[in-house]
């Protein structure tokens, strides 16, 4: 007997018990839907994270100094150790295309055209290459030493009137003093440009470290001159020159992080750039090395490497949830097995008739097995559709690009078949074993 004939007969008997069949497959549907939904969301989340690493970001190395025991993402526990001098020496390395400092600067507010919006963490000082050309929607990178800024669309749209290239913005510093800045570029997205910022959209103003950060350090230096107390307060975290008598200058500015640009995204190039940069920074000649020690070490990683940690956590979580969902699959199989057993008992007489007119044991086995498998496949297909829909809705809701894990769809159908076979095997075997005489006598 051919599989197609089995399928036709199985479909017949499933169709004649619609409600029962539907309830039976529900367990499978829910199990598979849960797995597919979580896997879809997981894959989408990963793609969302990885997709944020633009190709020309892949050659950037992000470095900071922190206690090696500190857990967490980029900049966790970071201390400002890198001086302008250090950065320049790394920048001059042959294996390195460019190196510049990175420093978030606290502010009070941003003002445009007389309109003030409170803003505490929008200002980021970095080198011009930090604004990668591909991320600029309009205008150009800022230039070092100029009072220029690149803003993101979130800032541009924050005021009554849209800020555009060429406009002047006023930054109100933490201390209250104001500096103005000319907008020279607007980025294409409000998401962070590097793992340092995090990827979530938020208003950001990118400015050159010189003059914006060095200027601030000058200010602090001035403060130190006035009172001894200020120095104590600053503590270890605010490293001052060994020689306290001299006022702090731009040279003393210490950056929280360093961005090193390798010549290409090639793994060899990146490793070489990393090794050379670390060699310079950790050598006794660098200013940073004075502060490094057992509880302050430099970490230097690419965006991809940094995200890997996040992904590992995500994978773990996903496996856990998928594991729980798989339990519902087991429950679903038990449901199918149960209903098949009922069905075999109920159709004892039919089995007897079939055997009496020449059905072999394997025909009866195949018939009932097919029925269980068809139930399993229906459950798997409906579960997959439902799971993808839920995944789609979820991805849409948390605003990440949707990635369909196609291999899981194939896997789900395979699981459906497997569940059908496993749960149908015993009932089908019972059916096949039925003695035709007993079965025909069965009332």
């Amino acid at each position, binding site marked *: 007997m051919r599989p197609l004939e089995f399928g036709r007969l199985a479909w017949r008997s499933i169709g004649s018990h619609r409600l029962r069949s539907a309830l039976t497959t529900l367990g499978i549907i829910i199990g598979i839907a849960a797995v597919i939904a979580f896997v879809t969301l997981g894959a989408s989340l990963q793609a969302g994270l990885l997709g944020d690493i633009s190709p020309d970001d892949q050659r950037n190395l992000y470095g900071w100094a922190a206690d090696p025991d500190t857990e967490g993402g980029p900049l966790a526990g970071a201390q400002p150790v890198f001086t302008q001098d250090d950065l320049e020496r790394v920048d001059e390395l042959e294996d390195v295309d460019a190196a510049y400092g990175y420093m978030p600067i606290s502010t009070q507010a941003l003002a445009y055209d007389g309109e003030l919006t409170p803003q505490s963490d929008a200002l980021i000082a970095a080198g011009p290459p930090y604004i990668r050309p591909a991320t600029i929607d309009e205008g150009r990178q800022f230039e070092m030493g100029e009072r220029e800024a690149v803003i993101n669309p979130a800032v541009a749209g924050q005021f009554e009137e849209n800020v555009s290239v060429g406009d002047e913005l006023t930054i109100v510093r933490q201390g209250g003093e104001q500096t103005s800045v000319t907008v020279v570029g607007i980025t294409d997205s409000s998401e962070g440009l590097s793992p340092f910022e995090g990827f979530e959209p938020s208003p950001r103003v990118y400015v050159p470290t010189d003059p914006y950060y060095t200027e601030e350090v000058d200010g602090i230096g001035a403060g130190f001159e006035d009172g001894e107390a200020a120095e104590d307060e600053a503590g270890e975290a605010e490293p001052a020159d060994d020689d306290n008598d001299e006022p702090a200058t731009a040279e003393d500015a210490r950056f929280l992080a360093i961005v090193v640009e390798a010549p290409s995204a090639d793994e060899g190039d990146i490793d070489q750039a990393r090794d050379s940069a670390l060699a310079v920074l950790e050598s006794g000649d660098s200013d940073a090395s004075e502060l490094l020690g057992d509880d302050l070490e430099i970490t230097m990683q690419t965006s991809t490497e940094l995200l890997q940690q996040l992904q590992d956590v995500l994978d773990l979580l996903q496996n856990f949830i998928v594991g729980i969902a798989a339990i519902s699959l087991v429950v679903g199989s038990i449901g199918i097995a149960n209903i098949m057993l009922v069905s075999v008992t109920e159709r004892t007489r039919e089995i007897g008739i*079939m055997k009496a*007119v020449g059905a072999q044991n394997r025909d009866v086995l195949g018939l009932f097995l097919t029925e269980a498998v068809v139930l399993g496949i229906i459950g798997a297909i409906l579960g997959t559709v439902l799971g993808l829909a839920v995944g789609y809705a979820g991805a849409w809701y948390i605003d990440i690009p949707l990635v369909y894990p196609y291999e899981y769809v194939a896997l789900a159908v395979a699981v459906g078949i497997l569940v059908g076979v496993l749960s149908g095997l015993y009932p089908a075997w019972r059916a096949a074993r039925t003695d035709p*005489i007993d079965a025909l006598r069965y009332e």
Partner: protein
Amino acid sequence: MATGTAVSLKHVRKTYQLAEPVHALDGVDLEIPEGSYTAIMGPSGSGKSTLMNLVGCLDTPTDGTVVVGGQDVGDLDDRERTTLRGTTVGFVFQTFNLMPRLTALENVALPQLFQGISRGERNDRARELLERVGLGDRMDHMPNELSGGQRQRVALARALVNDPTIVLADEPSGNLDTETEADVLDLFDEFHDAGTTMLVVTHERHVASRAERIVHLLDGQIERIEELDGSETSPRSSAGQTTGHDRDHGHDHDPDHDERTGPASGANG
């Protein structure tokens, strides 16, 4: 045509081990020639259905041998026995035994499904048989949409679908009115004329009288074999005369009553 032996039973015993052993068949010897038409009569519980099940390869004897179509059923494994009953034997059950969720056409085609015959071919054959039993206009009806007589005819068509050499019918006319019964019996005659070996269990004299000979069963044993050309063999000499008496009065009495009481009174007398 009727040269060989279609069915041969030797010392066949079928015992059910209950609290006390029940001998459904108790040493039966019977030869059924190819192309013959045999009726089996006997009171309820005398072992008629048990005999049919053995000949139909649905069951195996406790003792003795059953040879069907030249093959010893006891020597066959389950698979071979299934093949034999699928191809050589056509069984018409007293209770129809149609598949409730299949149409008349599908029911008739079912045995061929298990022989691996294609759907188109199956349906053509089933249609042809349904036409022949007068159900050309009921092919797509479900069994529960058919009358008792129509169901019986569907069961008959199904029994014939694989061109069996032996047709077994266990009380085929039990549920039929006189007219439909006559139709079914006419069909039996037709098959018999075409060379099929017919074995029909009945309680009714006029049904049995269509056959060439009647095997009378009693308490699991052959009481006597009545050749309808007049002659008679009786393995039990004591019962011989009583049955002759039965035959004379067959038309006056309720035949069913006759069958049940006749041999019993014979045994008493």
